[in-house]
């Protein structure tokens, strides 16, 4: 589903990714772990299409196609979803309106009719329960005045509503207490399916207890320095990262 070949990227002439290779197939859950500044968020943003990086070499293929020239919205419409490490506050834009607009953009792209108000409310109420948010959030502006945990749950809510094929969750577990973490993990497990893939970006092993990955990769200094199964996360928990340097 996603194939990254020798990806090198820089921001303002500073090289951040120095040759990343990654292959994610349908049905797989990959965890990418690493310290702050190792390039994890850059990788996530690049897959989603953020354009303030310069890709110096390498390619990203999604469903077999090189996506270099595809806009972020078209990537999203084709099934790529990014859960933001820091979800953006959008004052004055109502959450319900935003969710409906996003869902309808996807439906229009598939030449389906826009969802009617009653079906939409039914869907949204069902998904709100999954992430343990109450309906008052819908009346607020997008992420405006949300706590850290609420923002992360809102990201998972969007994932459940939009049903992407590839979900990249950028530190969706950071800054959460254990109950919120379990809710997030529950959302991820709800979403997990044979025909979908997930990339979990984190620097804690904690989430991986509840949302168990098939593969774990360590990103360090812009390169994947080690890959393994779920047991690698436990090893990292025990030994830290320095033994890999």
């Amino acid at each position, binding site marked *: 589903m996603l194939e990254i070949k020798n990806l090198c990227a820089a921001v303002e002439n500073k090289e951040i990714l120095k040759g990343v290779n990654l292959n994610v197939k349908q049905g797989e859950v990959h965890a990418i772990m690493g310290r702050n500044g190792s390039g994890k968020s850059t990788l996530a943003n690049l897959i989603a299409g953020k354009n303030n990086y310069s890709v110096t070499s390498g390619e990203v293929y999604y469903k077999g196609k090189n996506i270099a020239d595809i806009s*972020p919205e078209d*990537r999203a419409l084709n099934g*790529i979803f990014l859960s933001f490490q820091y979800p*953006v506050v959008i004052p004055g834009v109502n959450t319900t309106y935003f969710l409906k607009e*996003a869902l309808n953009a996807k439906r229009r792209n598939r030449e389906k009719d826009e969802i009617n108000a009653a079906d939409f409310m039914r869907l949204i109420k069902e998904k709100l329960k999954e992430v343990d948010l109450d309906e008052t959030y819908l009346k607020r502006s997008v992420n405006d005045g949300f706590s850290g945990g609420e923002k992360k749950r809102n990201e998972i809510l969007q994932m459940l509503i939009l049903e992407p094929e590839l979900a990249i969750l950028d530190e969706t577990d950071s800054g959460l207490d254990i109950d919120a973490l379990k809710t997030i993990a529950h959302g991820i497990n709800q979403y997990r399916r044979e025909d979908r893939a997930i990339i979990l970006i984190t620097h804690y092993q904690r989430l991986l207890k509840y949302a168990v990955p098939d593969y774990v990769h360590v990103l360090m200094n812009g390169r994947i320095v080690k890959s393994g199964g779920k047991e690698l996360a436990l090893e990292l928990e025990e030994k830290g990262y320095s033994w890999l340097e």
Partner: protein
Amino acid sequence: MNYLQRQFHALLDHCPDERKEIRSLRKTAFDRFNQLGFPTKKWEEWQFTDFSEIRKNEYRLASGKDLPKIPDKIPGLIPDTYSVIIINGHYQPQLTKLPMGVSVKSHEEFFQFDENVYSLNGNKNPFLALNTALMNSGVSLIVEPDSIIEKPIQIIHLTTALSDQFMNHPRLVLNIGKNSQAALVEHYIGETEIPYFVNPVTQVLIDGNASLNHIRILEEDVSCCHTATTNYILKNDARLNTTSFSSGAKLFRHDIKLDFTGDGGEAVFNGLCLTEDQQHHDQHVIVDHQQNFCQSRQLFKYILADKSSGVFNGKVVVRKNTKQTDADQSNRNLLLSPSALMNANPQLEILSDDVKCSHGSSTGELDDDAIFYLQTRGIDSETAKLLLIHGFANEIIEKVKPISVQDYIHNQFTDWRS
């Protein structure tokens, strides 16, 4: 002799029977205007706005001939309101609908009732002096004490079907009696491409424990120069809620002054300015906390496109020995083009210790991170930008009451640049 002098003399000749006190007031005011002259770049409070257009264009005062055939449908009329219609400066009593508890007076009548409202009191605003000298339009509305006026009163100043360039100097006086409650929509609309000049002065008195919701909508044609002065006096426990929505006029200057003359007053100002092409909108607000326990809130937002420009200059004054003033002033501006320009200058002048005051101003472009966030949800970048602009404006629009007026403003906003 410049065109204003000619017009001034013509006005005096045209109404020889006017009360002598009003004639002498006009003369004093015109002398004041001549002393002051049009503002120049050297005047600190006026430096960012160029008034040469008004100085050079030879506008004539509107006359009886300028009343066109009354349109079948008055533009801008908001459903479920009482209305006062003024067309090309002419008050249309037959189209006026007012509820019990509200009366209309002519200036001549109101002058007898309270001539202080017209006094210049050393005011240095040349447009106030010019209006006082040339006032040729407008009405006085009196809301009797203990009246609850359920629906808003909409005053429409329509400029339409002009033959040549003219000017109007409407004077609007609004008295809200004790314990009363009312809403006023002061609405300026232009439907002409011929240059015109509108210079209104609005004097509002809110008596003890009364409340007013004042909405000002500026939809003049871009051929218009609109210079406005609004003065508010709030007595004990009076409450004022204002919204200013302006999208019209090539040049718009608004001087707003509020005096808390009694304890316990509350005032909220919300403003949304939309400018494009070469439009220039300049708003100056002075809130004078002269008494105790008064609260004021200001939020003025500008959205500036193309080569348009805006000015916001707000000042909160807290007088000596006043107690428990609570004032907040905020100005936020969104630039949609690299050629758009904003000058913002929020100021506090605090002479008392017992205050809680804050102020701030920010000017920026659309947030790239927010656009990217929306794009990653499948929303295309153009729609994302529109959504953000709407969000920015919504903070003002969604506070407008009643809903009929909010809907009107929302629709006008949606039509802007579309």
